[in-house]
């Protein structure tokens, strides 16, 4: 029983640490720590730096240009990335559609799409949810009809994150309606956002940001070669991807970074006020979140140890998603309470008070989404009840 790393893993850790120290540009570093949304060009610039280093496809196998890292290496990387407060990778290309294409796609699709995804030359977005299909995703109504050598797509996708920047969208589309189970008859389509009939309508979130969109498809013609895998099997492909999305959303090391910063901040006086460390109630709440986070970190380690020894990962992705997002939100709340009145001026410009605390509200409101997206936490509990407890 031990949590020590091998010599090789320690050397790898050193390499990753050095990379983040030397090759993470100050300009991007400052932009991330400001708490504002990262501009598109900075996001792409960072992802291209990772690509140049060979670290863009963290989960990808080497034959497709991925790192081929072991689970332990991925863990070490995530920890260093969190410690460095590096930008969150836009997941839709690299972490979502990429793995679906290299796992289920045709050779032609792999050759056409994977290199640009890996190099962040194309920006992808996700077409899953619909106005009438949220937690109940299988009730989706966007329809694809086969006409000649095209799928003609009609319908509406929503909550499409950063769809305003996207070159491509991957969509779950109903292509057969006469099915025994609603999960059947759904196909996985890759759609060029420049296709005639695609319109992007912004949705402004409660924090005032334009992060998500509604995408309308009006007789959009999608070439048959853009269907991934088999017709009607899209649900299976999509599920693989969602499990990945959930594991990712634990965000343990980013939470650790934010808690550490908060403890540092609490020890000092801001605007001449007494340090928060003098406030026993606040410090107790902070400590309680630290305990939960430490538990999550070791739960992840236990999962990792199981995966490393050859066991298949199971529905623990749901567990990690629930705990991880609960903790993220608990930290957001602590930051809000730490800022007090100075959470009210919620944009950095014009600057009010002392720096970044004015952005805590932005984060707090924006991240109410965390317990809703990727299958709400209540849906995750349903999954655990069914698949782990056998209820």
């Amino acid at each position, binding site marked *: 029983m031990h949590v*020590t790393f091998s010599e090789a893993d320690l050397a790898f850790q050193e390499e990753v640490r050095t990379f983040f120290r030397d090759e993470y540009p100050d300009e991007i570093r400052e932009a991330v720590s400001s708490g504002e949304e990262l501009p598109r060009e900075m996001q792409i610039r960072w992802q291209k730096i990772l690509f140049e280093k060979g670290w863009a496809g963290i989960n990808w196998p080497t034959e497709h240009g991925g790192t081929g890292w072991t689970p332990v290496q991925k863990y070490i990387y995530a920890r260093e990335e969190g410690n460095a407060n590096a930008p969150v990778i836009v997941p839709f290309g690299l972490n979502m559609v990429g793995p679906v294409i290299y796992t289920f796609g045709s050779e032609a699709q792999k050759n056409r799409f994977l290199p640009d995804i890996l190099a962040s030359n194309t920006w992808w977005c996700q077409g899953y949810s619909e106005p009438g299909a949220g937690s109940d995703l299988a009730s989706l109504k966007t329809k694809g009809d086969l006409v000649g050598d095209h799928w003609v797509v009609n319908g509406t996708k929503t909550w499409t994150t950063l769809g305003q920047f996207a070159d491509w969208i991957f969509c779950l589309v109903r292509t057969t309606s006469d099915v025994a189970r609603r999960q059947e008859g759904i196909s996985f389509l890759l759609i060029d956002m420049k296709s005639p009939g695609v319109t992007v309508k912004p949705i402004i979130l409660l924090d005032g940001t334009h992060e998500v969109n509604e995408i309308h498809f009006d007789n959009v013609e999608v070439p048959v070669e853009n269907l991934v895998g088999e017709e009607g099997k899209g649900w299976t492909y999509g599920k693989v991807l969602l499990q990945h999305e959930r594991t990712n959303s634990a965000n343990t090391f980013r939470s650790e970074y934010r808690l550490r910063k908060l403890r540092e901040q609490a020890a000092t006086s801001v605007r001449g006020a007494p340090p928060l460390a003098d406030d026993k109630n606040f410090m107790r709440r902070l400590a309680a979140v630290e305990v939960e986070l430490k538990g999550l970190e070791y739960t992840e380690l236990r999962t990792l140890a199981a995966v490393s020894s050859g066991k298949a990962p199971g529905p623990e992705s749901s567990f990690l998603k629930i705990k991880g997002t609960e903790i993220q939100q608990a930290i957001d709340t602590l930051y809000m309470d730490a800022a007090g009145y100075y959470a009210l001026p919620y944009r950095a410009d014009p600057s009010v008070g002392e720096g970044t605390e004015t952005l805590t509200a932005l984060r707090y409101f924006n991240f109410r989404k965390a317990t809703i997206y990727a299958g709400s936490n*209540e849906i995750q509990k349903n999954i655990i009840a069914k698949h782990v407890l056998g209820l």
Partner: protein
Amino acid sequence: MDFSLNEIQAMLADSVDKFIQNEYDFDTRQAYAESDTGFSADVWSTFAELGWTAVPFAEDDGGLDGGPADIMVLMQQLARGLVVEPYLANVILAGGILRRAANAEQKERWLQPMIAGELHATLAFNEPQARYRLTSVATTATRDGDDWILNGCKGVVLNGGTADLLIIPARTSGNADDERGITLFGVAADSDGLTCNAYATYDGQRAAEVILDGVCVEDRAVLGEVDDGFADLDATIDEATLAVCAEAVGIMQVLKDKTVEYSKDRSQFGVPIGSFQELQHRMVDMLMACEQAQSLLLWAVMANASGSEESKRAVSSIKYLVSTAGRSLGEDAIQIHGGMGVTWELDVAHYFKRLTAIGTMFGDADWHLDKLASASH
């Protein structure tokens, strides 16, 4: 990175598991708990024969050279049987002091018979006014020629009524609550001036209020250095905290499993109650609490075993979680069992009571959260 049990740990877990399965069902446990002493002398002898009482001690002292991880494995399994035999009092508490502080003569006189199951010992770490402050030692020991005279009161001494040997922290110098000035004494239970009022506790265990009224002991009763007993006391209580946390995690897992099973069997409105989403989500919360607790337990045990600087924080973290999440898990287990959950007959209530007792032991949730809140890390 490896969280699996080594060969010895796996054997230990297996042998305790078999013992509980074959010889320690719930009715048997209840009979032992309700007997005069509150446990079975035969079972205790079996523990000694199987070597369980020897686990944390050095080979030279007749032990098995085990560490916190081995104790964790053992306690987690003993928890499944709600074992009432005084393992904590003897092996972890008294044993923890004897292992650290006893000289060769004291080990021969006290530790070896304890390991052999022939002598019962306990550690009187608590006083009525102390709440959870280990430094709150008002019991005094004053010099009388070559001897020491002890006066004071020790509260809720675990298994105090059946102990042959009581380890008594007493103040030999300094002020109330000073770490310095606490000396540990090994005191025979039949000493003149020592009164022991034993009673049953709500979790089926036994404890005692011990009054020391001019108890005279020889100088060879001093364990370790005069005035310098706190470090051994503190380290022993940390280990004991981990031991009861391991027990608590074992109990939490039993309660979770029993509740899930019950919800599949029990039907109302024509369907198993486990089909109701409200109950499903509560049981998922129970599962997640078990996983979080198991994770923190592993962290704490490894930190403690390696003597890392995180050790104190890790111990307080797992104790805080066991005291909070354990309590709500226990309450949910009772709630989902409905009327049956509040009966004496069903074992669930007794697991809940033991879990509740552990919640308080060696510092409750507020106590440990306070430590974590003020710790800088």
